């Protein structure tokens, strides 16, 4: 699975910018349009772009599917754990126990930033895991 050199180079150069955009969407989810899911999908497409241009074997050396599965479980366990922390600090489940901060700043919103990060990582791992599973299937088609 190899593409032409132009495509490989451009994909390689674009990859960090797409990742950066994804992280921006995730971390600014409570301030501007965007959020964990959208940013996670952008991160996932960055991985998919690498896989399409460099071949799945090359990409799997960097983004191992075992790690991706692990990250996915970790994201959800983090979410549930944050929910339980709400109970622990005397609020109800998923209650916000962090200070709200000044509106408009990145620290405002309390639990939203950790939620967004956990969702973003989970969705990025999930989208790329779906892509891996579909592209690696070598059944008789």
């Amino acid at each position, binding site marked *: 699975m190899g593409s032409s050199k132009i495509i490989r180079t451009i994909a390689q150069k674009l990859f960090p910018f797409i990742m950066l955009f994804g992280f921006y969407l995730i971390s600014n989810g409570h301030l501007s349009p965007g959020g964990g899911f959208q940013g996670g999908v952008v991160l996932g497409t960055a991985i998919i772009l690498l896989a399409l241009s460099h071949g799945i074997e090359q990409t799997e050396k960097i983004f191992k599917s075992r790690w991706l599965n692990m990250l996915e479980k970790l994201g959800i366990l983090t979410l549930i754990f944050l929910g339980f922390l*709400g109970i622990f600090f005397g609020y109800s*489940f998923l209650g916000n126990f962090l200070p709200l901060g000044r509106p408009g700043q990145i620290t405002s919103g309390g639990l939203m930033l950790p939620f967004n990060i956990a969702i973003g990582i989970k969705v990025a791992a999930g989208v790329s895991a779906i892509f891996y599973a579909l592209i690696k299937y070598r059944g008789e088609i």
Partner: protein
Amino acid sequence: MSIHIPILIIILPLLAAFLVLLTRKYKIVLAAVSIITSIVFTLTLSSRVLSNDKITYHLGGWRGPLGVSLVIDGLGFFFSLIALGLGLLVIIYSIPEKRYSRTYYFLLLVSLSSMIGVIYTADIFNMYVFYELLSLAVYLLIAYPKTGVTLRASFSYLIMGGVGLSFFLLGVGFLYAMTGTLDIFHIAERLPAAFNSSMQMVIMSFVLIATGMGIKIAVFPLHGWLPDAHSMAPSPVSALLSGVTVKIGIYCLIRVVYTAFSAEMFFLINSHNILMVLGVVSLLFGASMALAQKDLKRLLAYSTINQLGVVLIGLGIGTEMGLTGALFHVLNHAIMKSTLFFCAGIMITETGTREVKGLSGFGRQQPAITFAFIVASLGMIGIPPVNGFASKWLICLAAVEAGYTILVVIILVASAISAAYYFRVIQVLFSNPPEQNHIPAHEEGQVIHKGNLFRVLPIYILAAGCLLLGIVPALGISLAKPAVSLLLSYVVP
């Protein structure tokens, strides 16, 4: 800590589901322990719920229509006990099968906890989300053996279920457009005003939600997915599907119809007549289709459509006795149908065939299992010492009381038909085994020894439950009583 019990009941199995994926050794222990914990937590609430109290929990501290809240009342308690109890037995039943990997227990736990989520939530959109989670887990459980027929059955269920839940969501959209809120109890307060201004839209949202749930319950014209899905799935999953998952659809229908579209609207739209007609049609259809089946599990699947018709008739009558009968029949059908599917699983693995004909001689080899099968099928027919009789009797009495004598005749005819097909199976069980010995072609799994305790224990428990509820029906009725009084308090203005 005690105020957090409602969310813990839902979230502990969910957490255990993800922990199951991380361990290899302790998957069964983890699954069983989490479900047992949830049952214990549910039982601690019983004294408050059975005295007609309502337990409310606000998630994230946002009350009422702003956020999502959980409400446990008599109805939810009743259904959640059925779901959790049968879920535990299904887990026990699937212990001996070695090919069930971590993914199986993960999906089982997710589906059980999402059932509880559907039952306890007071927010109609949250109900949709949980229902979709339940459906996804169930599609995968059906497709678990990954053979051609299971994949096909799973796919057709996916298509039908997707359409049904889309209808449900569109109905939710109409409700939101009319009332501006998503909390069921809040919707119930505001719907009368909306009804006066735009009657057509209320009726339309009712029709959409009822159609969506009708697909999930498999009432007659929308039943197409059920026989395949329920018969092709692995036996424990079939028991879960027929016993509990279908009941969740009934729960949603009851909750939406009685709580949200409550009071005068329910009778103005004449929805009880609609329910009754649908019940009669699917009763007769299921009975007559089951008569023609050669495959044992397919016969049981059509029998589910038949019995759900009885439940719908009871709901449609709408008097106190009818509702009690319907809810009691939900409990009875859950117990009886899972007994039958568990027994069918053992029969299929031991004799190596799914055909009814191939079962001959089984009754002499394993009298205990056969006895449980006969008890449960007598309950399905409605013969006195077993529980099915009590609930059918209640529904018939309610029908006579409400003046629908024709319904009694129809239920009796359907019972006669179901007697025909169940007695056919029982007769085959006791007939002489054929001359040539077939080689048992096991249901895609390893051979499980006859007297495996984990296999027979759930069957004995459930059969004992059938007899107990049949002899002392007051037990089940007292469990259904708070739910019925709750439903009636919504209907009578």
